[in-house]
């Protein structure tokens, strides 16, 4: 019995030392707050090794909604941001929390829904589609989490002249990430708005035969711009500004832009580089 205990303790001790302790070691690391879409699609896992090879900087990121990402930067907890809510970002830079905002890439938002299309939105303009959904009281799943996607969706309701539908049975705020929200929409045969990248990833997960289809797309208002912003050292003295600038420069240089353009799933591009 004692021996068994000894073996168990020894096994645990070995496990503890298998991975070196990372606590407090922040030299040569760049901490980024980014949105769930760049992480969930696998783009960052694809880019990070190239970045480390080119610059020797270890990139770490926490994937949260754009609202929380901006907040983490404001509190000086990260060095750089990769986010997608241009109006909020411009305000953020104007408030002095961020500096050197550079556009990196875009994809677009699409409205997806069940093939039966109960509100008859297929092929309509965005504004007409939003009105049709509200009129038909067709179930619509919203992120409801102040993310970049959620902010965009709110703009769409505003543009349709009705504001965000609150406290109505057909408008469901999930409070979760994009893929989780698409899954919820699929379960309820609901409409939802998503970035195209996440939708492609979702189709990929569903074996290329997803239960929800793209119904509305191609409107200018649906453009989804991603930008990199360095946390302002004037606001945060301890921030790793040099590496943040290196990262911004690296993301926008030609080779990286080409790599972003080459990132595909199911033979479809997820992001279109537009730094220059």
């Amino acid at each position, binding site marked *: *019995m*004692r021996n*068994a*205990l000894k073996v*168990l303790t020894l096994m*645990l001790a070995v*496990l*503890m030392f*298998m*991975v070196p*302790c*990372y*606590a*407090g070691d*922040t030299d040569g690391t760049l*901490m980024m707050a980014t949105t*769930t879409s760049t992480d*969930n699609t696998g783009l960052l*896992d694809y880019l990070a090794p190239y970045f480390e090879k080119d610059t020797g900087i270890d990139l*770490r*990121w*926490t*994937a949260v909604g754009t609202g929380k990402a901006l907040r983490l930067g404001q*509190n*000086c*907890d990260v060095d750089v941001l990769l986010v997608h809510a241009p109006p909020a970002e411009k305000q953020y830079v104007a408030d002095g929390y961020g500096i050197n905002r550079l556009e990196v890439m875009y994809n677009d938002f699409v409205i997806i829904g069940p093939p039966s299309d109960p509100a008859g939105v297929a092929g309509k303009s965005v504004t007409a589609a939003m009105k049709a959904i509200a009129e038909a009281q067709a179930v619509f799943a919203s992120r409801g989490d102040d993310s970049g996607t959620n902010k965009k969706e709110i703009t769409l309701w505003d543009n349709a002249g009705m504001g965000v539908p609150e406290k109505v049975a057909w408008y469901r705020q999930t409070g*979760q*990430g994009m*893929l*989780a929200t*698409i*899954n919820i929409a699929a379960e309820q045969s609901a409409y939802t708005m998503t970035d195209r990248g996440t939708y492609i*990833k*979702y189709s990929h*997960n569903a074996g290329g035969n997803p239960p929800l289809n793209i119904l509305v797309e191609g409107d200018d208002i649906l453009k989804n711009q991603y930008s990199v912003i360095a946390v302002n050292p004037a606001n*945060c003295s*301890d921030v790793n500004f040099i590496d943040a600038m290196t990262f911004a420069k690296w993301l926008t240089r030609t080779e990286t832009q080409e790599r972003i353009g080459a990132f595909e799933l199911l033979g479809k591009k997820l992001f279109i580089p537009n730094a220059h």
Partner: protein
Amino acid sequence: MEFIAEGFVKAVVLLLQGDAETWSAIVVTLRVTMLSMTASLLLGIPLGFLLGYQPFAGRRQIRMVVDTLLFLPTVFVGLLVYAFISSRGPLGEAGLLFTVPGIAVGQTILALPIVMSLAASATEETAGRLRVTLMSLGANRRQLFLTSLWETRQGIVAAGLVACGRVMTEVGISMMVGGNIKWHTRTITTAIALETNKGLFAMGIALGMVLMVIAFSVNLGAMLLKRK
């Protein structure tokens, strides 16, 4: 439904093939749990024992507070700890945010009331039972104290197990304070949350099974400890 069966198979594959990401999450989970359990047991057992050993003024009030803290929501603890260890917070200098020790701080706050409360209850029970017997056998106060401490060991192991279960399975603190950073602060539970968010349900189930395997080993260890 079929993703559940798929998850079972995947769990075995992940463990046997030594999938690097899974093992990294397992190691992070064990390190965080070790740290927070060590801290909460070292603090909680003596405090819980004192709280349960004999009546003193204000004991019931303290007990009320400790028992109330049993209901601490993990996300709330995560937010509180974040407020303190954020760069802008009073303890920002320590650089604990997005680190394993940072998560452990939050989990210690979560586990401490559990250890204290359950250890106090166990002590109350054994000390009350032993006092009369031992006094009548002529034991002095010191002997009574030490015997009570020894006799409470089963209850204390149980307290540790309950706390360990809460700590190892929580998501709120790990997510908020750790940030779910791959290779660094991604625990099994934050990995489950992530995979579920990504719609990869089978992977989520597989990681859940992995966590249950770890839980089984912990309980096996505790059983051996009790049997002695």
